[in-house]
């Protein structure tokens, strides 16, 4: 136990606390600005089983705040990079990769295997889905969210404590509140909030200290101030039999991505399908040999792909239409794995010439 002696030496934590961490199972949803600092500490401190979930690729503009990733990781799967680095950080913990985004279809199955969920997602639909799933399964979840120089933290659904819907009953409509960091975020802010989430997770797991339940912590990095707002459980939010029929688009931009470098590699090594969503005119001028033409105005899958287990790559000229196409297709075919080829045919021609 030498490894953990600096924390087991704390009278209030002790070897009991460490034993509880070893036995614990935590799921971290999202491998971004919040999830990575939370994970690095949870893993370092010896949480026995840690689930990680994401389907994005590391991008250059992630590096300013997602400090587990290095320049050489750009273009690689976040899940694979995080798995490797966390395993090398602590070989005594078990890190379980979930190569998916959280969806209405998988949420109950995945979350039931864990004691606590860390909500490190970056969009409202996923946050409401985590809340509702945790209410059904009676699990606490440690919430963190950001806006510019601000951050929020709370532990929802902890025992008799209030839920996310007790604070914010209704899911914001698309575009109402900036989502997906489109408003910008100062690199260090998610580090502060993600670390607070790690601390609350440890407290939930070990029973040490006062858990931040029934209180929303609001951090303003500019002032700087920490303010806590008390709030009560509304009983109607504490029981739920089933998930809602519909949550908004469940991951940022709705879309998993891959760079043209990775795409070029996958073309040689993977069994996949490629959809080209450009117009007939663009398609006839220049196309990839294996591309199936599905223009935006007639967007649907050919019959043979409707139940496929292959990854489906979607391409257009610049990567924008293909992103919209995936958002629409994913609603109709939630079980299929779509990936947007970043930068589209433009980027591909730069890369191949």
């Amino acid at each position, binding site marked *: 136990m030498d490894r953990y002696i600096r924390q087991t030496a704390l009278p209030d934590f002790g070897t009991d606390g460490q034993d509880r961490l070893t036995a614990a199972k935590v799921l971290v949803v999202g491998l971004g600005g919040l999830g990575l600092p939370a994970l690095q500490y949870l893993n370092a401190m010896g949480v026995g089983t840690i689930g990680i979930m994401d389907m994005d690729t590391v991008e250059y503009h992630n590096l300013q705040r997602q400090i587990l990733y290095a320049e050489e990781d750009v273009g690689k799967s976040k899940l694979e990079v995080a798995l490797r680095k966390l395993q090398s950080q602590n070989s005594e913990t078990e890190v379980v990769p979930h190569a998916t985004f959280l969806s209405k279809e998988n949420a109950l199955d995945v979350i039931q295997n864990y004691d606590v969920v860390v909500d490190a997602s970056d969009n409202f639909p996923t*946050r409401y889905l985590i809340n509702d799933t945790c209410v059904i399964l009676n699990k606490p979840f440690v919430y963190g969210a950001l806006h510019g120089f601000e951050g929020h933290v709370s532990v929802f659904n902890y025992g008799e404590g209030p839920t996310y819907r007790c604070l914010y009953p209704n899911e*914001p409509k698309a575009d109402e509140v900036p989502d997906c960091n489109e408003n910008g975020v100062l690199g260090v802010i998610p580090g502060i909030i993600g670390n607070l989430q790690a601390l609350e997770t440890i407290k939930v797991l070990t029973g040490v200290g006062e858990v931040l339940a029934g209180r929303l912590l609001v951090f303003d990095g500019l002032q700087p101030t920490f303010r806590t707002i008390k709030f009560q459980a509304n009983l109607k939010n504490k029981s739920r039999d089933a998930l809602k029929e519909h949550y908004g688009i469940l991951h940022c931009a709705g879309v998993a991505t891959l760079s043209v470098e990775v795409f070029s590699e996958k073309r040689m090594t993977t069994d996949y399908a490629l959809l080209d969503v450009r117009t007939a005119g663009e398609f006839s001028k220049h196309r990839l040999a294996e591309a199936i033409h599905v223009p935006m105005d007639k967007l649907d899958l050919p019959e043979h792909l409707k139940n496929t287990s292959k990854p489906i790559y979607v391409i257009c000229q610049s990567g924008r239409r293909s992103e919209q196409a995936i958002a629409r297709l994913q609603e109709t075919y939630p079980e299929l794995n779509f990936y947007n080829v970043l930068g589209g045919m433009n980027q591909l021609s730069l890369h191949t010439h």
Partner: protein
Amino acid sequence: MTILLFGVTKDIVGSSSLSVPTSSVTGKKIPRTVSELKQFLGDTYPELNTLSSLAVAVNNAYAQDDQPINSYDEIALIPPVSGG
């Protein structure tokens, strides 16, 4: 009274706090409850009316719409935020 603004409400108003008159010189109705305050602010900043959920804290506690407010209270608008 002073209203502290967080998240997108700060962006909408363009400042981190806002002063609301507590005695009427213009004949305009003075907000006496949380819901009257929301209405008062919504008249000046219509974008606030489009928010599906907006938590209002009075003296660091979540307040229901019918809660009375007065000039001694510290009030904060705390909309949901979502970045990660």
